[in-house]
């Protein structure tokens, strides 16, 4: 095929394959993070702008935990995988109780408040952990030989773990009593309250769960990416894109959109410059909100 | 009766669906200039939906609306106001944080910009407040008024537009006896210059004010006629007693 008309240089096939694999890893972590944002929006009807900071905090805490615990890297990492999401979840529940609940979950006020929380979390991380990027060692180190190049086995574990967690969330929402309570609250807050569902606690729990998912995603990715106090911006933006394109509050749409965005980001960034890709993505989100607010895959009933 | 020449507003096959529910079902309706028409019917008969279609708050699913012979089916609500159709809300919808004067200044401003450029907003606004007896409280915050007074302010906002068709959606709901008497006097006065269409539950008010009555049931016109005719209509009695 003649590619001479194409305004960008075609990359080597190996590079393209690497792009696809990177895209899958990104999709997996993105799906987890976006799922957290989507869950919070779906049940509580609020947009959490501080979501990316919960992600960042997960990564930074993973660094803190692994550097305190010595021994084999797997030990520190396993502890971090449990401790970081729990701490982040607790912080989220506390901020829900201290701030969001007092705003009565008014949508516009909540956005302003979560912007404030974004600054607070980000700046406190800068204060305590400093401006440098911090590495976390992967829990194990084996490479899988693929045609053309070797590939880190850890990345496959990231994908596997993300899939398991998403199935877990789905089971929680669709098959358990807790999920039933959440869905009832999502459907009609006042009715749920009238039926004796403790809406306050459900909301704190959902907000914690949403933040915790972002934190787990970050802990999983941090051996690949390093922890930094400004790392929350990209996942926030990408999660927004995923949730908006997938349809606000739709679980299936979120996963499909994460795959789409993750893969295309992996591939597109080998073709376009990352900045141009981001410009197009943000404009796409804006246009979707303007012309198709139910998302590209959603149906009109919200 | 010559409907063609004198009808102010008329509908043909007007229909509105909400999901699977048909709230208004192929209504052919005609209102003559100078009438005071009451629309009555059991709860859920589609009364508010019907008048909302007339004033353009919601678009119809099917059918047409003509106003003074002109098709206004697709005209946005604010343009219909400019043609002289005013609507007062069923649930009091005043500007609670603004003063009474600011509440009526807005429609007065609209009226003046359309018909009397250069007229004084203050004079026209105050005149509207005087008609409902609230002029002495012009600088108070509207949200502090009693419920009955808020209803009157709502009507004053409708009057300040100097409409040709004034649509009142349950204007006497929640008013006290004395306030209702005052309201009836007001409507009689307004009817001198405007055509009035009112949705009303209070049958005494309906019988006192209306020159004709339209009865809606399940989104369709069940009966239409003078108060005496409607009082004697068996189908209406059945709908009210059985429904």
């Amino acid at each position, binding site marked *: 095929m003649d590619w001479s008309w194409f305004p960008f240089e075609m990359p080597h096939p190996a590079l393209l394959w690497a792009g696809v694999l990177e895209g899958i890893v990104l999709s997996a972590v993105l799906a987890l993070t976006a799922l957290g944002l989507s869950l919070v929006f779906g049940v509580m009807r609020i947009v959490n702008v501080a979501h990316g900071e919960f992600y960042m905090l997960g990564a930074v805490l993973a660094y803190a935990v692994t550097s305190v615990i010595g021994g084999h890297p797997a030990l520190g990492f396993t502890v971090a995988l449990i401790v970081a999401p729990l701490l982040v979840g607790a912080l989220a529940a506390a901020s829900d109780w201290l701030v969001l609940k007092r705003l009565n979950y008014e949508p516009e006020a909540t956005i302003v408040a979560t912007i404030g929380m974004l600054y607070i979390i980000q700046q406190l991380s800068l204060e305590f952990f400093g401006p440098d990027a911090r590495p976390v060692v992967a829990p194990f180190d084996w490479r899988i030989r693929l045609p053309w190049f070797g590939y880190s086995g850890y990345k496959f574990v990231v994908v596997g773990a993300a899939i398991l967690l998403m199935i877990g969330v789905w089971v929680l929402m669709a098959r358990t009593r807790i999920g039933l309570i959440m869905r009832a609250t999502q459907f009609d807050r006042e009715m749920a309250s009238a039926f004796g569902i403790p809406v306050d606690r459900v909301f704190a729990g959902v907000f914690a769960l949403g933040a915790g998912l972002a934190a787990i995603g970050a802990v999983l990715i941090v051996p690949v990416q390093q922890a930094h106090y400004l790392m929350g911006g990209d996942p926030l933006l990408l999660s927004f894109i995923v949730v908006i394109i997938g349809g606000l509050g739709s679980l299936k749409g979120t996963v499909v959109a994460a795959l789409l965005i993750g893969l295309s980001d992996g591939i597109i960034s080998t073709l376009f410059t990352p900045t141009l890709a981001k410009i197009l993505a943000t404009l796409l989100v*804006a246009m979707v909100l303007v012309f198709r*607010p139910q998302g590209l895959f959603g149906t009109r009933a919200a | 009766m010559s409907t063609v020449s004198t009808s102010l507003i008329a509908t043909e096959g007007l229909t509105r669906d909400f999901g699977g529910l048909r709230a208004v079902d192929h209504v052919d309706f005609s209102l003559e200039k100078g009438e005071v028409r009451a629309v009555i019917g059991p709860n859920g008969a589609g009364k508010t939906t019907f008048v909302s279609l007339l004033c353009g708050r919601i678009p119809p699913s099917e059918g047409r609306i003509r106003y003074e012979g002109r098709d206004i089916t697709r005209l946005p609500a604010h343009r219909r106001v400019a043609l002289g159709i005013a609507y007062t809300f069923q649930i009091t919808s005043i500007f609670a944080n603004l003063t009474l004067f600011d509440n009526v200044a807005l429609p007065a401003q609209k009226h003046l910009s359309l018909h009397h450029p250069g007229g004084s907003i203050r004079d026209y606004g105050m005149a509207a407040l005087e008609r409902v007896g609230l002029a002495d409280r012009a600088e108070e915050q509207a949200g502090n008024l009693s419920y009955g007074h808020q209803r009157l302010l709502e009507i004053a906002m409708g009057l300040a537009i100097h409409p040709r068709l004034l649509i009142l959606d349950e204007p006497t709901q929640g008013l006290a006896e004395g306030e209702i008497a005052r309201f009836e006097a007001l409507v009689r006065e307004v009817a001198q210059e405007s055509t009035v269409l009112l949705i009303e539950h209070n049958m005494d008010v309906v019988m006192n004010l209306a020159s004709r009555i339209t009865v809606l049931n399940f989104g369709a016109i069940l009966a239409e006629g003078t108060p005496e005719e409607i009082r004697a209509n068996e189908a209406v009695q059945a709908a009210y007693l059985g429904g």
Partner: protein
Amino acid sequence: MHGGVIAALVVLGFVLPEYHHGAMARILVLAVFALGYNVLFGYTGLLSLGHAMFFAAGLYGTGLAMQQLGWSAAAALPFGIACGAALGLVVGVLALRTIGVGFMIVTLMFAQAGYLTSLYFTEYTRGDEGFTIPQAARAIGGLDLSNADTRYLVAVALFGVAMLLKLWLVRSPAGRVMVAIRENEERTRMLGFDPFRYKLMALVVSAAFAGAAGAAYGVLFGYVGATFASIQYSILPLLYVLLGGAGTVIGPLIGTVLMFYLVDFTSSLTSAYNLVVGVALVALILVARKGILGTIRDKWARWIP
């Protein structure tokens, strides 16, 4: 009273020590930005999270016209304002199809796209690093705008004009409709006003103010950089207005002064100085949504405009 504010600002120019003199000039320009934000947020009730793009449109419109095309400051300044207003028109036509949270996110996304665009064309904009406008070019009709005293007086003049324009706007019939839309959009529509038209007008005016602030910033301080397009500069005007009092004429100035000095002071203590931005946002939205002047107006002085 508003004349008094301007007179006080002029007098301040002569008594302030050098550092604060420069800071106040900067504050006045940012206060014009906040005044414009208030037209949209305080009076019309629309919360934008993307006003940095309008400021940046003015800044880059003026800066690039001078840098790349060699325009004079006298021509580039109105061009910058026009850039802000034009962008406001385009964004408004699209974003005003949404309401509430949708509008916030759409404006945020457009502004983010704008910021990334300023990075993308690094060849011209020099990205985050930015570029400077030569001192020689920063003059209008014999006035040397790089001179500290002149700069201060020009900033006061700009602020004065902006404040009087805004006062005139909010007291005009259109201003009354804007407030009515803030209070109850559906009722306003049913009184015969087209909400879209008035919201679009408020957005364009607001964007023109932001563009004017950006254009003036470029000419007065000679620096043009992508930082001013970043989300930080969309949040700051919101914060200034919330702090000073939304829907008041002078409130944005009070908010800008206090916040500027608060951040300035904190940055001498720690590198995490943006912490005060976060704390102020949360505190204001939780306990003092009417801001300083709004609270004073409610409690003691209803006459404050």
